[in-house]
């Protein structure tokens, strides 16, 4: 069996980290730091690259379905349509398809956010808080948080 991708990335990272120690050119060092960031993210996300997207689609669809129950007719239709489109693509695990689905759901999510911002009902505020919690959890999962100095 070939070495798994994270193993190969590990080997590349070790070599790059050694190379960067002896590199004196500032531009080349910055490019190497950039490459190391990219490889680290790839290594971190490799195993869950499809499953995290599938999960994201499921969570967003669930939020939109709940939003559709609360929203006025026109918004309800567009939220329902977005969820329905996502369900049609279920099973297609190509990254490009998953990312396209996520983008479509995000557009609906923004519409829902805008409506929730002026909705003061208890259910509306609870859904709004959950939506923010989802966005924060996603940002936390994908943040790099590597300080330059």
């Amino acid at each position, binding site marked *: 069996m070939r070495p798994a991708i994270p193993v190969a990335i590990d080997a590349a990272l070790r070599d790059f980290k050694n190379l960067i120690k002896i590199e004196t050119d500032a531009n080349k060092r910055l490019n190497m730091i950039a490459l190391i*960031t990219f490889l680290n*993210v790839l290594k971190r996300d490799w195993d869950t690259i499809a499953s995290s997207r599938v999960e994201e689609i499921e969570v967003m669809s669930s939020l939109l379905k709940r939003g559709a129950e609360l929203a006025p007719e026109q918004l309800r239709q567009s939220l329902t349509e977005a969820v329905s489109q996502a369900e049609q693509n279920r099973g297609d695990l190509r990254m490009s398809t998953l990312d396209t689905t996520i983008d479509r759901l995000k557009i609906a999510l923004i519409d829902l956010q805008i409506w929730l911002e002026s909705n003061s009902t208890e259910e509306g505020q609870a859904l709004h808080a959950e939506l923010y919690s989802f966005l924060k959890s996603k940002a936390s999962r994908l943040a*790099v948080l590597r300080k330059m100095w």
Partner: protein
Amino acid sequence: MKQSSTIQERLRDYLTGNLGFKDVVVSHAELIFGGFSRETWRIDAEWLTADGVRTEKSMILRLDPPFSLLESNRHVEYAMYKAFWPVPGVPVPEPLFIEDDPEPLGMAFFAMSRLDGAAWPGELRQPMYKEAWSKIACQMFQILGLIAAQDCRDMGLADLLPVPSVDNAWAVELDKWEKVINDNDIGPLPVLRAAIRKLRREPPPPAPKLSVVHGDYRIGNYLYIPEGIVGVLDWEMAHLGDPIEDLGWAFAKNWHFAKAPGKIAGKLTAGEAIRIWEDASGLKVHPDAMRWWTLFTNVKAYALWVTAANKAATGFTRQLINTDAAWQNMYDQELWMLEDMGGVS
């Protein structure tokens, strides 16, 4: 990118042919790292001026880039060096000359005197800065206060730059950066759009005055030595507006040290930095203004990452620095943006 020998020859020809200097010798030309927005050269040259004075200059040439994360304006940056060069307490390099014609060096450029000092913030961890680091952090906010204290009209900058009112300075900046984001569309961005809506729903109080705003005032954008800060650099995003904007940018989590989380410039609490700034500027920081500009800082920084992501995604300039700016920063910024939004509202 040009070779050093080519730059030496072309600069010698420029100093002779365009500026009328005689007996020009360009003895050294070295491409250095000067940020992402411009190609930067260190040059050593000497010449006889038209009135026969022998002059030696170590200078920095800042050449226009084919692409930058910033819509940089050479004339604005040069004008800022000219405006602040005579101002006591605000150290900047001496502006030397500016050239719009790309013919002489291959790109339009300007030149300023070279200052000795470190810019990379990591240097502050060296033993030689053990005592000086805190002083440098304080000086950073004294200088920023002095920048805010200047009268931008007396400096002639109101003739060069758009002049917002104290009431709409925030809107001008928010419109500008939202346009950058729209022009560099990378798809739907729920966190960013929510932050922009919140900023519009809850505007800040009027600016305490209309000031010069550096626009990128942070550690890394000034030169320092153990005796203190010797030059404030990178004025290409400078404009007139609310001086609290610079405080928000200087405080951003993006620039914090790994080993000093929450500390501004690695040493100060936000309260300490604000007090120093207030003493130097004679102005007061309204907490609501600080909150607004802190959230705005996330939007502005995000606009830079979106620009980089767009340029890489569309193949306009698929360089590692563009992919890195996006990969490294976008979700960090979203996380901070959500924190600074303070939850649902």
